């Protein structure tokens, strides 16, 4: 016999299957309880959205091939969607974009700055993600331009910090940044 008789399923695959199934089952249970007890208040939607956030974060974290700066960018996107949904569910006032988003961007910039200082040799790997953070922070200009939110100090601060952080990193690690851009954009 040259093949094993017992084929073991991979532990992570089993974990993902159980985890995915649990998320679906819990979501259904929450929906049913919500509609049976308080059909006028959609609290279950908020819970499901939070569950989805946890689910996506865990799924992304399992993949060890991604670097930490990628994780930060994914967190910005997921948190923004989650917070926007909460804002929308409790009667949209725009705080998710005008307050929460700039705070998330400022915190992520601080994290990226610390990462660059600690691990400046690998800055090249963070470069693209830092560029994405700048673009995300600049996206708030679009919301202001469309009149969805009004300009405030927090938004301006977040944009300035993003650009400043990016420029400082660029000046310090220009060669690595250029190299990373060439790799990522190879045609």
């Amino acid at each position: 016999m040259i093949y094993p008789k017992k084929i073991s399923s991979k532990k992570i695959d089993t974990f993902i299957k159980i985890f995915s199934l649990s998320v679906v089952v819990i979501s259904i249970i929450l929906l049913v309880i919500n509609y049976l007890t308080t059909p006028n208040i959609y609290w279950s939607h908020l819970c499901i959205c939070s569950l989805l956030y946890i689910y996506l974060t865990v799924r992304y974290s399992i993949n060890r091939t991604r670097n930490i700066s990628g994780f930060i960018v994914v967190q910005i996107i997921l948190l923004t969607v989650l917070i926007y949904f909460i804002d929308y569910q409790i009667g949209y006032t725009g705080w998710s974009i005008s307050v929460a988003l700039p705070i998330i961007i400022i915190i992520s910039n601080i994290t990226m700055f610390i990462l660059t200082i600690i691990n400046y040799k690998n800055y090249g790997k963070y470069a693209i993600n830092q560029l994405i953070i700048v673009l995300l922070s600049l996206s708030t200009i679009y919301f202001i331009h469309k009149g969805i939110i009004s300009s405030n100090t927090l938004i301006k601060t977040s944009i300035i910090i993003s650009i400043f952080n990016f420029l400082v990193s660029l000046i310090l690690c220009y060669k690595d940044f250029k190299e990373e851009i060439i790799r990522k954009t190879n045609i």
Partner: protein
Amino acid sequence: MSKKTNKNTWRKLDNSAKIFPLSESKKYSTVFRYSVVLKEDIDKAVLEKAVEKALLRYKAFKVKLKRGIFWYYLEQNLKKAIVREESDYPCKRIDPIYSNDYLFSVTYFERKINIEIFHSLTDGNGGLIFFREIVYNYLEMKHKELLDKEERKTRKVEFDTEDSYIANFNKKSKKNDENKKAYILKGKELKFNQVSVNHLLINNYDLKNECTKYDMSTTQYLTSVLIWSIYNANILKNTKTIKNKKPIKVCIPVNLKKYFRSKTMSNFFSYISVDAEMDTCVSFEKITLFVKSEFEKKLTEEEMLKTMSDTVKIGKNLFISSIPLSLKKIIIRSVYAEIQKHLSITYSNIGKVGIIGKYQDYIDYFLFLIAPENIEKIKCSSCTYLDKVIFTFTSILNDNDIERFFYNFLRSQNVKVEVESNEILDSIEGGEKNDISQKNK
């Protein structure tokens, strides 16, 4: 193509390799496997050292796959390669979590060492060179006395990672293919992602005699037997009439290094398609004549250049290149699902596995396997080691009628065949020898 930085190196994927990460999925792994069955049990610690040593020599394999904005690319992998005991069906998708990001995976089971390689890394030829190095290293570490007696010169490795497609393609070459859809093998599929494996250990002397009878090469003869088996054991079994049936199309990968100058360790292969219409399949003799003429017509440098140039043109197309990777993945997957319908089965013959001198004493035989998938539910491969041609069926079909017919046919031609399998399905040995002899008459 290798670009140097002060930290680590990276390189673009070759023209063929670009497509694999875009089209692969859990059910379409584009992974192939080499195995060697030794005459003794495997020592894991020694095997780990053998792999590490091989990676020092073949740096082209010490890489991981990274996402770019437009294409994937390969970057140097500083992690240690993992060696595990075999615990899954062969040729499954290589999960970077379990392989420390490497695009190959080394496993062992009792007397057998396996290497599974994602096609983006290299083709069957490059894979065999690397695998042989691991086997040599393992035997040298395990049996130190070999080193004294045997002179395996550690020659400077001259292989490179150039994209030989780009180096050799011709802008003006054009392929005039009428591309008809192929007959798709019918039958229930195995459950739980199982893969059935049947290795036919064929006596090379008997097989050569048979090939001489028909004035054919081994690949041509085995392709003919394969078509004959599909016709009898799948088409006739599953359909009432053969009228308007699509042709049996057998894809035969071709090593382009035989036609063009190249020392690359990256992919450099093409393929020919042997398209047998139903009226060709009425007798084995007719099939042999047809297969021979197809090989003569299609297996030429000019034809290879046409096929290769067509693929390069697509890979180099600026419009396709400039589509962002995520979008490209969706497009390529849907296009690929259609393209796959133009082939019934693939048969890849890697040829002779050459092992020098005393090392042979420790080796029983080699195996070569390729991954079956949703459309091509069976894939066939073969390699030759000393006096054995090892023909392998990897299948996701819940029956082994084609394998059994193939085996019985060879036996009916007085070719000695032994069978090894992973016992997912019943054994193919025994049974219908007489029926097949009669059909052949």
